[in-house]
């Protein structure tokens, strides 16, 4: 099968949204205050890479991690579809350590801040230490070892080339002063600098057990975050709920389509059958397009598709009513069909444009839920414009092979007297 035809294969699954297959949608705000304006985008893509590595631990089907800029905020959007243990995933991403090296604050500043804090001011400032340029961003690797004399577990870290230079400078400027190591905003140790360290290596010693140290090393290696992040929004749907919504939506769709089919049959009889065939073709074309584009199917998306079936029926009804009118005016069936189509066309076109406008704008501005709806509705309307003029017409012409207008009138549901 050629690549472009892959979407037609029944093996190709529909692309289900998070609300239907279960999963989480997380929005993180990145704190870029410590980064130069021109380095932000690079740092953000670094952040994305790190989170991507972490997320890959969970072995989720198709994780999606995107960097987004909204106003002056830099955000990271993480989507993990089909994940089983949502709580654990959020916790694990959140736990990713943010490593920082800080130097001692001058005494007078410390006093000043402490005094202000007594009056409940400047509460989020650290009175003792000042952040430096050295963060987990410059970490090359971390290892677990044990102190030769105390047998305490300790973590040795190695910086990148750039990091080594910064580290050398910091140590040089701070000889005989403490250099604090912060993890996720909390100090874990503050050893005194004895001399300038140029090799780009350092040890973190602290009061941790071997187990804690091991986890820390793993987390540091899989990615110490280059920028601190904060979770500002999360939406999660359990797999069971997603399944339930999917099952219900599909069922509702089937019932709806069947109801419409019965309705068309009762109202238009034979022509109703034509319309049902046209609808079947319409639905297959739309569903195929959903696979090929591919459109992410959400509950709202299914609603959009179901709604578009109504629109497709509308086009057929407009055409049939026009044909009936032409028949009433004494035209025979052969000339009534093309006439009806031509006359119905302007109405169908003009009336659908307004809905298309709405769908386009919704797609542009919407969140993922709204996008799903807008896309299925929009695709649905475009296809219905197409199929009502190809499929319906062909079927109608085929149905009238004998050209028996009288029978056709009856079948169209028209009173004989007309």
């Amino acid at each position: 099968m050629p690549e472009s035809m892959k979407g037609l294969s029944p093996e190709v699954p529909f692309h289900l949204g998070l609300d239907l297959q279960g999963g989480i949608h997380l929005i993180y705000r990145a704190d870029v205050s410590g980064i130069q304006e021109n380095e932000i985008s690079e740092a953000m893509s670094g952040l994305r890479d790190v989170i991507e590595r972490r997320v890959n631990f969970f072995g989720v089907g198709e994780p999606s991690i995107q960097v987004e800029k909204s106003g002056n905020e830099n955000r990271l959007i993480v989507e993990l579809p089909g994940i089983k243990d949502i709580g654990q995933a959020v916790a694990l991403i959140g736990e990713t350590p943010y490593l920082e090296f800080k130097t001692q604050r001058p005494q007078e500043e410390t006093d000043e801040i402490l005094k202000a804090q007594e009056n409940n001011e400047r509460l989020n400032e650290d009175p003792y230490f000042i952040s430096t340029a050295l963060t987990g961003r410059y970490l090359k690797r971390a290892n677990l070892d044990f102190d030769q004399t105390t047998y305490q577990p300790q973590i040795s870290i190695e910086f990148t080339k750039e990091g080594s230079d910064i580290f050398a400078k910091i140590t040089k400027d701070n000889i005989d002063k403490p250099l604090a190591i912060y993890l996720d905003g909390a100090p874990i140790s503050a050893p005194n600098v004895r001399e300038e360290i140029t090799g780009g290596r350092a040890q973190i010693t602290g009061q941790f057990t071997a187990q804690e140290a091991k986890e820390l090393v793993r987390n540091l290696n899989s990615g110490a975050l280059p920028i601190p992040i904060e979770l500002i929004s999360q939406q999660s749907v359990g797999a069971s709920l997603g399944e339930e919504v999917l099952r219900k939506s599909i069922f509702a769709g089937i019932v709806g389509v069947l109801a419409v089919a019965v309705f068309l049959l009762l109202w238009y009889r034979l022509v109703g059958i034509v319309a049902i065939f046209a609808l079947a073709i319409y639905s297959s074309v739309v569903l195929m397009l959903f696979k090929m584009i591919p459109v992410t199917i959400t509950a709202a998306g299914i609603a959009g598709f179901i709604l578009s079936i109504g629109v497709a029926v509308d086009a057929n009804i407009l055409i049939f009513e026009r044909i009936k009118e032409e028949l009433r005016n004494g035209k025979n069936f052969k000339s009534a069909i093309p006439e009806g189509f031509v006359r119905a066309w302007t109405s169908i076109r003009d009336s659908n444009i307004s809905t298309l406008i709405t769908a386009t704008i919704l797609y542009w501005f919407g969140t993922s839920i709204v996008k799903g709806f807008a896309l299925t509705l929009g695709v649905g309307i475009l296809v219905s414009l197409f199929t009502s003029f190809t499929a319906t017409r062909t079927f109608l012409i085929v149905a009238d092979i004998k050209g028996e207008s009288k029978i056709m009138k009856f079948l169209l549901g028209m009173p004989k007297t007309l």
Partner: protein
Amino acid sequence: MIKHRKIFYMISGLLVAMSLGVFIVWGLNPAIDFTGGSLLEVEYSQVRPPMNIIKEKVDAQNLGNVLIQPIGEKGFLFRFRDITENEHQALIQTLGEVTQKRFDSIGPIIGKELTRKAWTSIVLVVAMIILFIAYAFRKVSKPVSSWKYGSVAIVALIHDVAIPVGVFCVLGYFYHIEVDILFVTALLTILGFSVHDTIVVFDRVRENLKKGTGKDFEDTVSQSVRQVRGRSIKTSLAILLVLVSLLVFGGETTKYFALTLMLGIVLGTYSSLFLASPLLVTWQKWQERK
């Protein structure tokens, strides 16, 4: 129906006025999509504990004002302020053996942003639709000029959107039903459909005017309405059928979405036949009198 137009004007006017009234007095009940906040749905594997015990446990978590609602046979739905992941985990712990079915926690910034986006799309859709109406009716001029068709279509549009808003103000006030981003989506879709129905009628008027059908403008319009009414009602029925099935059988998330759309479809059809078309006639008569 054109003859009895005053009755329809009164019904529509009253409904719109009432909707406006409840909107001003009660307003809509915005969901956490817009306000920020959290929503947690859990299910117990066996029997759910009594509400007062749960309430005690949850209150101990300092989550501010928590709304607790039993859901299904074994579940609870909680609504509260937006919380951190640690608070979330602590809450789950305290509830005991539960499966988390859904958890949304939306920060106030995201809420504000969504509200802004919603307004932007509303303004854009309305502007584009007005432009489109002006364009679609650019060639019709006699005896009513094209901008009047457009204005009438807009009146119908306001009518079709105002009443569902009113209904949801009432639902929000009495049943705490919230409006989320899908509600806004439904309203915008109604805008599209409302114009859709109105255009089908006006298109017929346009055609009949060209053909010279009817003895005067009023007659032309009533004949046009008679000609398209079958189609309009049938189409609406077809769409209503699918929406009813979505409302009855569909998932929880799209229920009120379907309801909003249903209201819009019914109103859109009604207003195109009983409001927009008679208004054209009224306007034309009023013009003649001058």
